[in-house]
């Protein structure tokens, strides 16, 4: 029974695609117009995924180490095969669960939230496209398919960010996100091709050329043995570039904050919970490869730490509610990278799961807030919303507590990371982690206090939130609160190698992290709830507010440098390359002009030309003759 059941898992991928095509065709041919039908279809497809995921998950719990793989050849050239298919193991089933449940809840939420929008069907079509690509991504059996869906999620993200394409800022943000992701794709593609090449060229098994995840351990060993260190590291870094771009890590982190121009459900689904976690997911998938080189692992961890630190720092001073959450997401993703890079594999992934739930809840809450304030996103014009939106405030608070690592699921996952760091003796990373935790607690509670406590500073009375919205966030709150209890189970379910994360003697780290969090909350309370004036260090504030001017630098790079290079190229093309062609034409015309001037109509000039020609040819002839004679003479003498 199980076999036939799991055999059909590809339907989970394809169902959203069908719905997507149905909606698109319906719109093109003006057949399906009803929003209710569209949303029901979408929800059905996702619910199908949820059920499938749950059943599979339960089955996997029953049979440990069960792995299912099924694939067919997408491209076959000689014996070089690239496969498409599905691959189910513990990691992918967890990801599937996360993706489908959050997706379902967000769709439920959007059914109401986006109902008034003119482009409701388009929105749901995009959501389906995203679902299709994200599920395809997590069920990828190999690096190649992973790349395919990697691009597809990028595109759905692009489409959804630019959903309100009439807003220039949204369009620009979409473009930026797409281009940044493309930079990552460049790395990923190059890395994929490189790995594929080395395996195909040097190993005997041509079937490994498609880089299946089921065999990634062998592939890592092969690759490590065929290449020298530098090449290996370069390949890893190229692959990591994909992860960095998708998860908005340090050099490529700027797109995520801008991506908040998209509708809020999109931010909740894609830009906090699922797609941006794909980078972490890919690192987890290729963990056997990366873990062969300490340098690579440290690189991941350092990039993660840098991102976590600077983004947490940026989040402190932002005034846009969604931007705060975006930088928070960035920072938390950085923590996951840090965890993975520092060897806290299970902790990092558990944080991925828990973070997905509470962060999407945060976004959905912010969506309700923004909705009720008629699209006001600036927290300086909020305040005291607890009275109007009590459920939202409660959920927001739960999430804040969780993300600060004080209680609930966030506590469990953060504690797992910290213990992992300490266990692997990465003390510097641990210190960094704690600083991030401090800042996290501070800015999250800052946002909570400013938005929900104090006096209402807006002009219009906030609207009540509808039932569906409340339902979605309540369910997410339940997840957030109770997910922590699965910690032990998770440790056994997802593990790298044989070592299970030891969480026995954790008193010390728990004490430290909780106290740090409390400190952060206290600071936020003192400054923002009690309105104590503190001296703002101007430079630090400006740096944070302007995000270290990295965005400006990138703007300069893309708008000025790139554009200048293009213009230089265009100039060369127009005036140099084409100029030569035109010059050839002009030369011919000039020659023609000369000849036509020679055409005087007077026959005597014609005779003169003839004489000149004859004279020249005879002179050349004579000259050539004398040269030949001389040469013959000289050679005769010698």
């Amino acid at each position, binding site marked *: 029974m199980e076999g036939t059941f799991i055999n059909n898992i590809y339907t989970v991928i394809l169902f959203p695609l069908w719905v997507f095509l149905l909606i698109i065709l319906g719109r*093109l041919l003006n057949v399906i117009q009803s929003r209710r039908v569209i949303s029901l279809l979408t929800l059905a497809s996702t619910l199908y995924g949820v059920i499938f995921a749950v059943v599979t998950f339960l089955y996997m719990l029953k049979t440990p180490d069960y792995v299912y793989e099924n694939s067919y050849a997408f491209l076959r050239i000689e014996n070089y095969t690239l496969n498409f298919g599905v691959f189910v193991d513990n990691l992918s089933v967890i990801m599937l669960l996360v993706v489908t449940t959050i997706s379902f809840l967000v769709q439920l939420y959007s059914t109401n939230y986006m109902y008034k929008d003119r482009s409701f069907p388009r929105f749901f079509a995009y959501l389906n496209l995203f679902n299709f690509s994200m599920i395809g991504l997590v069920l990828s059996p190999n690096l190649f398919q992973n790349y395919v869906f990697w691009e597809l999620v990028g595109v759905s993200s692009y489409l959804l960010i630019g959903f309100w394409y009439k807003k220039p800022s949204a369009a620009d943000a979409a473009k930026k996100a797409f281009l940044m992701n493309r930079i990552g794709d460049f790395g990923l593609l190059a890395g994929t091709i490189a790995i594929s090449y080395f395996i195909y060229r040097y190993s005997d098994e041509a079937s490994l050329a498609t880089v299946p995840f089921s065999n990634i351990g062998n592939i890592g060993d092969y690759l490590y043995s065929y290449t020298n260190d530098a090449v290996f590291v370069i390949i890893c870094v190229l692959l990591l570039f994909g992860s960095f771009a998708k998860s908005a890590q340090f050099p490529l982190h700027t797109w995520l904050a801008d991506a908040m121009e998209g509708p809020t459900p999109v931010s909740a689904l894609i830009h906090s919970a699922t797609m941006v976690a794909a980078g972490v997911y890919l690192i987890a998938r290729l963990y056997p490869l990366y873990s062969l080189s300490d340098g690579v692992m440290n690189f991941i961890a350092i990039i993660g730490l840098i991102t976590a630190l600077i983004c947490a720092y940026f989040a402190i001073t932002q005034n846009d509610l969604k931007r705060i959450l975006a930088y928070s997401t960035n920072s938390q993703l950085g923590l996951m990278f840090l965890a993975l890079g520092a060897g806290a594999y299970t902790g990092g992934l558990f944080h991925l799961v828990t973070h997905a739930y509470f962060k999407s809840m945060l976004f959905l809450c912010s969506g309700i807030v923004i909705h009720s304030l008629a699209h006001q996103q600036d927290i300086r014009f909020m305040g005291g919303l607890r009275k109007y939106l009590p459920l939202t405030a409660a959920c927001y608070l739960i999430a804040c507590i969780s993300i600060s690592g004080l209680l609930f699921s966030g506590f469990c996952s953060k504690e797992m990371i910290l213990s992992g760091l300490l266990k692997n003796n990465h003390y510097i990373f641990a210190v960094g982690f704690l600083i991030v935790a401090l800042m996290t607690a501070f800015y999250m509670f800052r946002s909570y206090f400013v938005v929900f406590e104090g006096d209402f500073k807006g002009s219009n009375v906030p609207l009540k939130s509808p039932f569906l919205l409340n339902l979605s966030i309540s369910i997410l709150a339940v997840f957030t609160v109770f997910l922590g209890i699965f910690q032990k189970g998770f440790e056994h379910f997802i593990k790298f190698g044989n070592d299970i994360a030891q969480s026995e003697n954790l008193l010390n780290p728990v004490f430290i992290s909780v106290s740090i969090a409390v400190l952060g909350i206290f600071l936020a309370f003192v400054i923002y709830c009690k309105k104590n004036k503190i001296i703002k260090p101007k430079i630090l504030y400006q740096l944070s507010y302007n995000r270290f001017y990295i965005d400006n630098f990138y703007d300069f790079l893309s708008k000025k440098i790139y554009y200048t290079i293009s213009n230089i190229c*265009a100039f060369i093309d127009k005036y140099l390359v084409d100029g030569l062609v035109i010059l050839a034409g002009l030369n011919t015309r000039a020659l023609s002009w000369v000849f036509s001037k020679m055409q005087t109509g007077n026959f005597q000039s014609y005779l003169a030309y003839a004489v000149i020609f004859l004279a020249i040819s005879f002179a050349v002839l004579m000259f050539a003759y004398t040269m030949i004679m001389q040469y013959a003479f000289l050679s005769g003498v010698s």
Partner: protein
Amino acid sequence: MQHLSVLILIFSPLIMSAILFTPFFKNNEVRIRRFSKGFASLHFLYSLLFLVFFNPLNQGISYYEEIKFFGTSWIQPLGFKMAFGLDGISLLMVILTSFIFLLALIASKSNIRQKHKFYYSMIFLLQTAVLGVFCARDMFLFFMFWELELVPMYFLIGQWGGGNCKASAMKFVLYTFLGSLSMLLGMLLLYFYNFSTYGTMTADFSAISVSSPEFPIFLQVFISILLLIGFAVKMPIVPLHTWLPDAHTDAPTPVSMILAAILLKMGAFGVIRFNMQLLPEGFQYLVPLLLIFALINIIYTAFVAYAQMDLKKIVAYSSISNMGIVLLGLCTLNLIGFSGAVFQMVAHGIISAGLFMLVGIIYIRTKTREIADLGGLGDVMPRLMGFGIILSLASVGLPLLIGFVGEFLVFLGAFNSPVDELSAPIKIYSVIAISVLVLSAAYILRLLHKTFFANIFEKWSKINDITNHEFVVLFALILAVAFFGVFPMSILDIIQPILANILEIFKI
């Protein structure tokens, strides 16, 4: 299989173009158009029949036929034959040709406002010429059709184009003529060396390919260069490309579609037919150089495209960039990259036709192609925007759409290529070339955003969305884009045996 005649396939458009001048059509525009479309659809179906009965594993030439005049071959004293036949690559190109011509004819409805009879007859003449190039089994026959194609193109660009179309048409013709003369010289040398060494007067591809790989290396290289100049103009390869933006900008939309989708492929096809099949050593010798040209093609034109202000020029430069990928694929000298190159030829044919159609639709409505004058058209033309997004994404190589497979295979092939033994660091080239992912996204998104996104100008708020026939064209293209993106093996299966066959000649 025997009842399928390649001669009917090639010459029926010519006959059709003559039939259009019969009194039956008078000057009845609707009748001319309907018959043309009907004929083109029949032709497309007929070409599909060739696919159905085609056996890709057949080593030789399928559907071989020769025309004889009064019992002698075409130019008997010189051994030239008017012989036609198909192999996998030509078959693919033939079907693409027939498909794109059908769509171009449908698209002509809204683009061509005058001189209908003349226009359609020229289109059919062009079709015969192009099919002749793809099917010819004799060097000089190939050359004849290659040149023949210039005549209708001259009229099509010059008569129905806009802007400075007469000058552009002239530039196109002169440029191509120059290239083809150099090509002719190469062919003549090939022919005579073959004759003087082996004593057989023949210009038949199959016959020459037996002996020509044995030519001395310097001769092969010299002939290769001469031939390549001709193909480089058509393809185009960078320093010889400047006719293309002009020709595209001033050509009417259907002609732009044909130009980008079919005519550029003739260049690549010629490289395969001549340089690779006949002169493998010479080609191999030139590969390190060609790789650099390919890279310049890919990267440099991507930058140039970004700076353009005219929609058609952006698409035109993107064509050049894409053809650079084809060239890179041809230079990899292994089956993966080679299949990728041929696939990319088809892919680019379909995508660029779509993009030109898109720009044409916008131009008909707004009478402008300047980026600065456009914006926010998605508001009034949502369906067009949908098509535009899909085509753009296909163009930047989104997986599961047609643009991806070719690029991917080319890059993969470049990595696997044996060429690095020729002291060309092709892996590094490949990585550099992959950066086209970003560069192409940059200019294509610029096109998309500046046209459809952001705020709409007041003056465009009244324009209509696409009409039915435009919808049909775009929809057919999108179907092809999606189908071959998901099932690339349907194309690769046809071409792989012949490509493997070609690669066997190379001694790497």
